[in-house]
């Protein structure tokens, strides 16, 4: 087996194992690591398909931003993020089983008539998948979607902040100028259990 075939084998096994771990892990942190494995595997497959630019984007955006965001949210939620409901409705399981069967049968029927005649890749152009080629395509035929995607990202950032920061004004405001007594509670004064200066209690 050539070295390219070995790369394909390693990356595809990583993809499938990571995907199963993402879905089946009871602890979502392990699921996030599985997602990371899948993403890195797919980046390797992008390299194999001579899409270097997309491989880099995949690693930067998915592995660098999306997975980190998931891990941050898991950290914020703590142990509650690992909630599992056992008595999940059977309908979902039946539907997913049917979906699995449809996908398996569909691929079988789609590929069976063409068994033996496969679409082989030729050797790619040296410019295939480079930043220059994708960029010229992007600014040649996709300028409007590109600009719209910048607007989408801005709206998403503003929306994420607006939704995620919750209600304001819940915290009590401290007075701008503290009364002198509070100002001079220093570490040198002896204190009782509640943290107040001991001499204040004595008075």
């Amino acid at each position, binding site marked *: 087996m050539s070295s390219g075939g070995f790369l394909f084998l390693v990356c595809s096994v990583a993809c499938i194992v990571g995907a199963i771990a993402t879905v089946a892990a009871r602890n979502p942190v392990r699921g996030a690591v599985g997602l990371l494995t*899948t993403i890195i595997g797919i980046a390797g497959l992008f390299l194999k398909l*001579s899409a270097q630019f*997309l491989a880099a984007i995949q690693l930067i955006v998915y592995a660098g931003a999306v997975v980190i965001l998931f891990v941050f949210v898991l950290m914020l939620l703590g142990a509650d993020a690992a909630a599992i409901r056992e008595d999940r409705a059977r309908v979902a399981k039946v539907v997913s089983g049917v*979906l699995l069967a449809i996908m398996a049968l569909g691929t079988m029927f789609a590929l069976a008539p063409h068994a033996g005649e496969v679409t082989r890749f030729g050797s790619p152009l040296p410019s295939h998948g480079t930043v220059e080629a994708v960029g010229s*395509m992007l600014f040649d*035929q*996709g300028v409007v979607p590109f600009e719209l995607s910048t607007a989408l990202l801005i709206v*998403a950032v503003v929306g994420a902040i607006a939704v995620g920061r919750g209600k304001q004004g819940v915290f009590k405001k401290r007075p701008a100028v503290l009364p002198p007594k509070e100002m001079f509670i220093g570490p040198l004064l002896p204190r009782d259990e509640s943290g107040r200066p001991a001499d204040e209690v004595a008075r």
Partner: protein
Amino acid sequence: MMMMGQVLEHYVLLASVIFTIGAVGFLVRSNILVQLMSIELMLNAVNLALVAYNRVHDGDMGGQMFAFFIIAVAAAEVAVGLAIVLSYYRHRSTVLSDEADALKH
């Protein structure tokens, strides 16, 4: 299997397997965070299929352009989705999607 990784069908099969795993995870799991990760799996599978088909059409970068836009939209979707998850958790103290039944009552 000699030409493993040199054939379009291998990539399409792999993409369909990953997509199905993601779809099953989205349907079976009730944890919203795992459901979001399953959506990411499905988007990644579609990206893989797009780039694989693009490899056949040498010199045309249309498929990779689509994959680029899918990555951008997926990043936006994750940012907003996780903000909604945090907000939902603040309301109900849970991340189970079954508990999100405020519109029912």
